[in-house]
């Protein structure tokens, strides 16, 4: 989990008195460390030693103060800030560090030295995005995210260890100051690979799509043994950077240190690099960003794609695309888009799905969709032309969530996927489910990241029979389901006596609840049975099959829970996850068939994942 406090924030983020800020300006001006920059930052030019910047007189104290308050909320004084920007790391220090005040931004510039040698240069720019309130009109605008733009960093070779350490320090510092994102243009030869490796991604998804296409083209041109699916499932620049480390390909360097995948007159020196690294070293410049802070105590990812809407059911069918459309609209209306880290799902490699489903079963599903059948296997499982891809994408969505949590890009993730998955078995579609998303995610976490003990908690009102069947002999995957009693509720399994099989005996826990049980009964069972089982199991990752159909307004079953129950369970799961697995929780949408209660419950759940306190349905803070 991220650290919330930093040395630069004071008194839990209490703003400093105005006069401290003013005094800070004066001190820096007297020390020749504060100047005014022209509002057009492009005219700020390096011009040799001694006078590195074209500067003007600084703006008035009041202008500077207004900018300081806007960017730093007065939580840090100017000289404290300069000090915090220049830590000594691995023997490197900053020299001639100064602040420049523009109209709407503050710049930091310094030389990087080690001993008596100048080894590089660093320029950062701090500003706030202005976002149009109405999408197509230039005005009015509301203050948006605070940005740290990495204008430039140059370092002599062998200093990337320093850059990594420095930016790790910066990430904590700017998190404490409430900055939302790093941005930069990855253009220097090494930088194009380096920033991706450090967890930066393309903010413009079209640019990323081009990057992925180019990688695919390179793979084809060189005739490399790489499946198209492997490239397709990349959804983050950092995944490109580490792609196929086992495959080394030659690249050619020119005298300026730029790389090319083709040898020509200037690019003569041949070097072998792993595929992903080689590709990025030779790629076009790209615009990178990295999330620092999300306005919420936890950084929560949100897996979403319009592709999930392509699975259509017949009219009157409860599991319709409207469910997700309504949820996404609510995310927008609640102002949660800024505080969530959006994650793209990908079509998973077929091998990773074969860990859960028979190839013949998936093929039969694909064929039924291709034939234009109206349903697959059973009448409940209505299908349309987009159902096969949507179902695969839903499983890939959970995998993308697992990628984000296990690589530390998010603390936890909510996967707003459909069709749901927890009834789907190795070779059976039922109960609106085709591909078992949460099970595919669990198997992927184990094969791709080596995660050992995984706890799957399923609080959909229906028993997760598909997931149970897939893991009932696996002692490392604990499956726990809370649901309405099988004598009254679909699918009629999940009795208390079902406790796992073989070596998995004891790693399945079923908690059936009588019809009309509400929050009190649910939470009593949750605290009495479920919480101790998580404590005892000590999971390394927690997955949630989060259906919201136990809500009292949901027509599909007879439990009578409210949003409060989901908030309580979410909060407790996070506490347990903090204790056992660094807060790693990936929550996967299952059922929930009344739009209003699905949306209010899911929003309350997501806000709790973000670590927000207070009443579940209150609007976002800030």
């Amino acid at each position, binding site marked *: 989990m991220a650290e919330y406090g930093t040395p630069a924030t004071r008194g839990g983020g209490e703003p400093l008195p105005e006069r401290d800020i003013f005094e800070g300006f004066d001190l820096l001006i007297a020390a020749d460390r504060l100047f005014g920059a022209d509002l057009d930052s492009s005219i700020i030019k390096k011009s040799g030693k001694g006078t590195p910047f074209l500067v003007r007189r600084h703006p008035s104290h009041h202008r500077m103060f207004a900018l300081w308050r806007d960017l730093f909320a007065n939580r840090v004084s100017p000289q404290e800030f300069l000090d915090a920007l220049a830590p000594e790391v691995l023997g490197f220090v900053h020299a001639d560090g100064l602040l420049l005040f523009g109209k709407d931004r503050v710049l930091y510039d310094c030389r990087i030295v080690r001993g008596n040698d100048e080894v590089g240069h660093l320029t950062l720019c701090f500003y706030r995005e202005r976002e149009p309130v109405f999408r197509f009109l230039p005005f009015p605008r509301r203050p948006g995210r605070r940005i740290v733009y990495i204008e430039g960093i140059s370092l002599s070779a062998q200093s990337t260890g320093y850059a990594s350490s420095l930016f790790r320090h910066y990430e904590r510092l700017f998190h404490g100051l409430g900055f939302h994102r790093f941005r930069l243009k990855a253009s220097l030869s090494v930088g194009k690979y380096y920033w991706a490796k450090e967890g930066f991604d393309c903010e413009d998804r079209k640019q990323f799509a081009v990057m992925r296409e180019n990688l695919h083209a390179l793979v084809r041109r060189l005739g490399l043994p790489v499946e198209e699916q492997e490239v397709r499932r990349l959804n983050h620049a950092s995944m490109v950077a580490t792609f196929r480390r086992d495959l080394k390909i030659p690249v050619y360097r020119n005298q300026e240190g730029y790389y090319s995948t083709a040898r020509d007159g200037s690019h003569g020196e041949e070097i072998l690099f792993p595929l992903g690294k080689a590709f990025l070293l030779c790629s076009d410049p790209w615009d990178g960003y990295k999330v620092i802070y999300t306005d919420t105590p936890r950084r929560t990812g949100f897996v979403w794609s319009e592709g999930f809407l392509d699975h259509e059911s017949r009219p*009157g*069918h*409860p599991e319709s695309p409207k469910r997700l459309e309504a949820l996404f609209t609510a995310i927008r209306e609640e102002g949660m888009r800024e505080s969530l880290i959006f994650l793209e799902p990908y079509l998973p490699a077929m091998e990773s799905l074969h860990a859960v489903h028979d190839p013949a079963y998936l093929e039969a599903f694909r064929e039924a969709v291709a034939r234009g059948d109206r349903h697959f296997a*059973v*009448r*409940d499982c209505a299908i349309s032309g987009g159902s096969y891809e949507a179902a695969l994408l839903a499983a890939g969505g959970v995998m993308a969530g697992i990628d984000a949590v296990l690589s530390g890009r998010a603390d936890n993730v909510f996967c707003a996927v459909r069709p749901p998955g927890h*009834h789907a078995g190795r070779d059976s579609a*039922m*109960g*609106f489910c085709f591909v078992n998303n949460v099970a595919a995610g669990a198997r992927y976490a184990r094969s791709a990241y080596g995660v050992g003990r995984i706890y799957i908690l399923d609080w959909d009102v*229906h028993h997760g*029979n598909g997931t149970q069947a897939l893991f009932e002999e696996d002692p490392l995957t604990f499956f726990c389901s809370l649901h309405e009693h099988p*004598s*009254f*509720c*679909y*699918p*009629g*399994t999940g009795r208390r006596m079902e406790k796992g099989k073989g070596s998995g005996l004891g790693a399945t826990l079923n908690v059936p609840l009588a*019809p009309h049980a509400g929050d009190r009964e649910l939470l009593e069972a949750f605290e009495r049975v479920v919480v101790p089982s998580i404590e005892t199991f000590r999971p390394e990752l927690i997955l949630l099959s989060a259906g919201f159909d136990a809500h009292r307004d949901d*027509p*599909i*079953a007879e439990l009578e829970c409210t949003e409060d129950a989901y908030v309580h369970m979410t909060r407790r799961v996070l506490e347990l996850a903090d204790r056992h697995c660094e807060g790693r929780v990936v929550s996967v949408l299952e059922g929930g068939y009344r739009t209003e209660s699905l949306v209010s419950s899911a929003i309350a759940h997501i806000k709790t994942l973000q670590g927000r306190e207070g009443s579940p349905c209150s609007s976002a803070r800030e």
Partner: protein
Amino acid sequence: MFVGPRMKRDLVTVTPGATLEEASRLLKVHRIHHLPVVEEGNRLAGIVTDTDLRNATLDGMFGGGDRGDSGRPVTVGEIMTRELVTLSPGDTLDDAMLLLSRQRIGALPVVEGDRLVGVVTKADILSALLTTLDIAGIGVRIEVVLRRDVKEAARLIGVLGDADVEVRSFVLSPHGSDKYAAFIRVATIDVASVRDRLRQKGFAVGELSDFYEAG
């Protein structure tokens, strides 16, 4: 529903001359409660249960002083039940259920003439019921109360047919003096729609509480 196909044919038996220790060991090893006692030619002579064995042992421990050492039973033949209630393969499971229930016993030997051919236990009857009602399979039970008129039952099935819902089992039983209770097991997650549809067609779709009998 004849006894023949449902009975257990692969039997563990003893002879009257077997010792109690031997019988006790067989019950334990095979995790069963009843041992048919057979003589030559598989002729059924009696049955010995774990209760018989336990009683004999307890008698030996606590009542041995009265009868002296020579009175203590040693063989199965001495303690087995000789007057038996038996079935033949041509009897039905109804017969078996009635006998098991009325005689309050756990197992019935099945004989052809006087030859033992099988055993039917309470557990066999339960699994037959589970299969018949399809309780272990995927599905949800819907409970409907309707007028005691077979035309109403036909209408009920018609509504289910129109809903295109997969029915796994259907039980119609008397309910009060002038009604039926229908227990229908359907395999759909959207059982709420099926219930709504039945209500629209005028059927009383039960809640759990409707089926609790007073007292």
